């Protein structure tokens, strides 16, 4: 026992050494231990996948993996990931710039509105889009008397558009966070060197907000990879859909096998991303320059406003309007207690999402800290490992937790803690990404100053690092909050019995075909999330 313990400590010591950054800014062993612990915990559910995959015979496994249809969906998935990521960056980065660096009117308002699409479950969004823009949809019916036919929304392009519209806020929010803490004096320096805003942005700002952008882009990429509902609704075959079909037909072995393939893709994307050097070393941010916006939009104000309004319309107005219409159209039908909406559902959602946000934020802290402060491979691996749980479809994760929970932690099974743990595993990278990029912005000299003023590393962390990374931490936690609010598969499988949330309620009425009834809870979801965004931005305001 004791030997084992000292072995653990030796391991931690070894890790710590590997993690020590060359600048002598070492991470405390407890922090490192915590980081390792969190990483191990979030990766552990994956053991189950391998366990299940092992049920499939080798020959069969091979034939599944190389089946032409498997390869086709594989290629489809990669194409979708690439296109959704691209479109999200194209939407998210300019919008972030508009709301941080320019004199766009009502910047606060737009910031909130433009982050909100994140809370619309993308499959709901997809439904709304299909009913609005699909063949025989609302728009088509409006236009058909005029003899206008609209191009089909189904397929690759439609899936890309719809997914991107509802997940671009990842890029938007993480890019924003980087921009807010960007040292504006550098932009000024570039301008005095005769670089107009555009060129200065490209040459100076962009390379330095890259870690934030990349964090957002990765979140988008893995969302696109693991989302099932949207591609299905948009008639686009993806890998995850195949996995779902397998699960729905008790082919857990095959599904696990395919999940492993998905993990392979995840690893590939992560590798690719680090090759592209997107997460380059951090640059000590300084104090922000003048608080006046750096760029004046001039005649671009109107197009910029129109752009914001268009995105907001597509992502918020369309779904809400469509749901409202369904609600009106659905008629009397069956009205029963089983479908009655209760405000407690909203309370439950907020409650569990808030807990998940806090816990995930706490869990993200050591990993973000260690990976930002140390350039070592081990630190990188720790950080990257958190993406695994995120890239795996929620149902895979949920079932693995069913297995682990019911059989090894029965006292936790179907309790809130296990559900929260599932959220942590699913959404940790959202918090890690945002937190990490703010840790990168903390000038190491500030910590040196605190140390020479008599603070221990933990004191310096508490009094200097923590307040400085608070915006990032809060942004990360807010992302977790928003996504937890809408998370479905894990919630459905792992919720405590009798604990209904907005999303499980939406699922219930949807599953029964009462799409119209989703309007109210969907609206509540958006409003509650909007309130939380306002809180988040207030926090950012006091810090900028």
């Amino acid at each position, binding site marked *: 026992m004791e030997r084992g313990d000292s072995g653990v400590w030796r391991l931690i010591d070894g890790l710590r050494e590997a993690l020590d950054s060359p600048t002598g800014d070492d991470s405390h062993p407890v922090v490192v231990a915590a980081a390792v612990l969190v990483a191990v915990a979030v990766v552990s559910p994956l053991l189950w996948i391998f366990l299940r995959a092992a049920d499939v015979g080798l020959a069969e496994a091979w034939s599944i993996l190389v*089946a032409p*249809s*498997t390869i*086709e969906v594989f290629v489809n998935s990669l194409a979708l990931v690439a296109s959704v990521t691209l479109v999200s960056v194209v939407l998210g980065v300019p919008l972030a710039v508009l709301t941080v660096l320019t004199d766009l009117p009502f910047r606060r308002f737009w910031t909130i509105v433009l982050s909100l699409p994140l809370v619309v479950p993308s499959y709901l969004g997809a439904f709304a889009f299909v009913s609005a823009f699909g*063949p*025989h949809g609302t728009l088509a019916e409006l236009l058909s008397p005029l003899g206008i036919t609209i191009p089909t929304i189904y397929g690759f392009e439609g899936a890309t558009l719809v997914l991107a519209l509802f997940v671009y806020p990842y890029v938007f929010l993480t890019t924003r966070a980087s921009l807010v803490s960007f040292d504006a004096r550098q932009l000024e320096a570039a301008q005095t060197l005769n670089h107009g805003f555009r060129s200065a942005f490209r040459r100076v700002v962009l390379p330095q907000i890259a870690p934030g952008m990349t964090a957002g882009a990765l979140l988008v990429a893995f969302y696109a990879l693991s989302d099932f509902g949207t591609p*299905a*609704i948009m*008639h686009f*075959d993806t890998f995850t*859909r*195949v996995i*779902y*079909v*397998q*699960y*729905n*037909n*008790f*082919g*857990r072995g*095959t599904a696990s096998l395919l999940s492993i393939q998905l993990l392979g893709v995840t690893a590939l994307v992560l590798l690719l991303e680090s090759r592209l050097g997107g997460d380059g070393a951090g640059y000590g941010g300084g104090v922000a320059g003048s608080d006046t916006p750096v760029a004046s939009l001039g005649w671009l104000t109107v197009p910029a406003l129109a752009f914001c309004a268009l995105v907001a319309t597509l992502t918020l107005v369309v779904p809400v309007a469509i749901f409202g219409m369904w609600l009106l*159209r*659905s*008629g*009397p*039908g*069956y009205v*029963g*207690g*089983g*479908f009655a909406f209760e405000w407690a559902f909203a309370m439950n959602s907020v409650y569990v999402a808030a807990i998940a946000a806090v816990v995930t934020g706490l869990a993200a802290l050591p990993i973000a800290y260690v990976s930002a402060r140390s350039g070592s491979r081990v630190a990188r691996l720790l950080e990257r490992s958190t993406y695994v749980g995120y890239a795996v479809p929620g*149902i895979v994760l949920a*079932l693995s937790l*069913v*297995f682990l929970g*019911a*059989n090894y932690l*029965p006292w936790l*099974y*179907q309790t809130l803690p296990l559900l929260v743990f599932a959220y942590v595993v699913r959404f940790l990278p959202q918090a890690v990404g945002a937190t990490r990029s703010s840790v990168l912005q903390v000038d190491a000299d500030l910590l040196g100053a605190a140390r020479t003023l008599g603070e221990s590393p933990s004191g310096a962390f508490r009094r200097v690092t923590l307040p400085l990374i608070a915006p990032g931490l809060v942004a990360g936690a807010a992302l977790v909050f928003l996504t937890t609010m809408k998370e479905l598969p894990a919630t*459905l*499988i792992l919720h405590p*019995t*009798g604990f209904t949330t907005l999303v*499980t309620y939406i*699922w*219930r*009425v949807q*599953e*029964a*075909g*009462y799409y119209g009834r989703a309007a109210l809870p969907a609206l509540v979801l958006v409003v509650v999330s909007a309130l939380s965004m306002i809180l988040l931005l207030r926090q950012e305001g006091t810090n900028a």
Partner: protein
Amino acid sequence: NGLPGGSGGGGESGEGSSAVTMSSFRGSGPLVEGRPSLSGTSISDLPDLSGSLTVYLGGGEGGLYRDLLTLFSDIYPDFDVRPREGGTAQLANTIVEEGDNSPADVFWAVDAGSLGSVAEADMAATLSSSVVEDVPDEFHPTDQWVGTAGRARSVPYNTNALSADQIPDTVMDFPDTPALEGAMGWGPTYGAFQSFVTAMRLIEGESATREWLQGMLDSGVSEYPDEFLTSNAVANGEISAGFANHYYALRVRSARSNAPLDLAFTSGDAGALINVAGAAVVQGTDQQELAENFIHHLLTVEAQEFFATRTFAYPMIPGVPPVGGLPSIDELNPPSLDLQELSNVQPTLDLMRDVGVL
């Protein structure tokens, strides 16, 4: 005529709410008008439900089924039922993963395949014959689960686009029917559809099924995420006809009574399959007796009337007929097939994927 009109509830204990009557179970609307007299075991014939029961409640009718549970709770104040919803297959998977530690007492699923897979994993306890005796054998092929409501495969069609006689009587003819060329819809990811293909595979064989799937693809079938949307699309005129469980069309109609939508059925083949929602007692429960009694309650004349008039399902006991306009089970002429076998979906999926349907 056996139904004691106004006092479905109450039971022997007499402490139940006498407000729960047959009409509490019965739905309303034009489809439900003119119900004949019903017969079968009544709730009042059964022992009281008492104690707490965890029910894994799978599938789409979750909300409706909840209403039934509420009715039970109203009748039996001592009965604390804790429904846990989820996708049917997912709950089946969950139960299998949970194994002996499953907190579930009853698994109530919307398709036989899920029940079958749980049964195959030895996770379903044997039901007493007293519980299932009213249900025809085809709806409880093993003693490990029993059907509670039937759902027939059907062909919803748009009455503006097609007339009933344009729809073939044999499902295998669909790919070659010119009227349906490019005008059909299906939901291949939907469990019931996969059960239907499974049935076809079992009845017609692998290669005929493959040809059929390929033929449908070639004829330009449109794909929908589920069959409710398929039925809606038919009502909207987006497609002329589709493959769907029968109750979806009735649902659409009950919401939009003027929708140009009607149902056609094939005969004697996979297209006429009647799948069931059903229930099983989960192996290892410490509430065996209560669980069985609960399932028995689902087979009472009141509960069956509930399924018939509120979910438009086919009742499982002969004393309760389906709602107006639906052919009876006998008229339907379903294929003779062991529903238990529907859980063998894997080859179906392989086939569907192979063809490119999935």
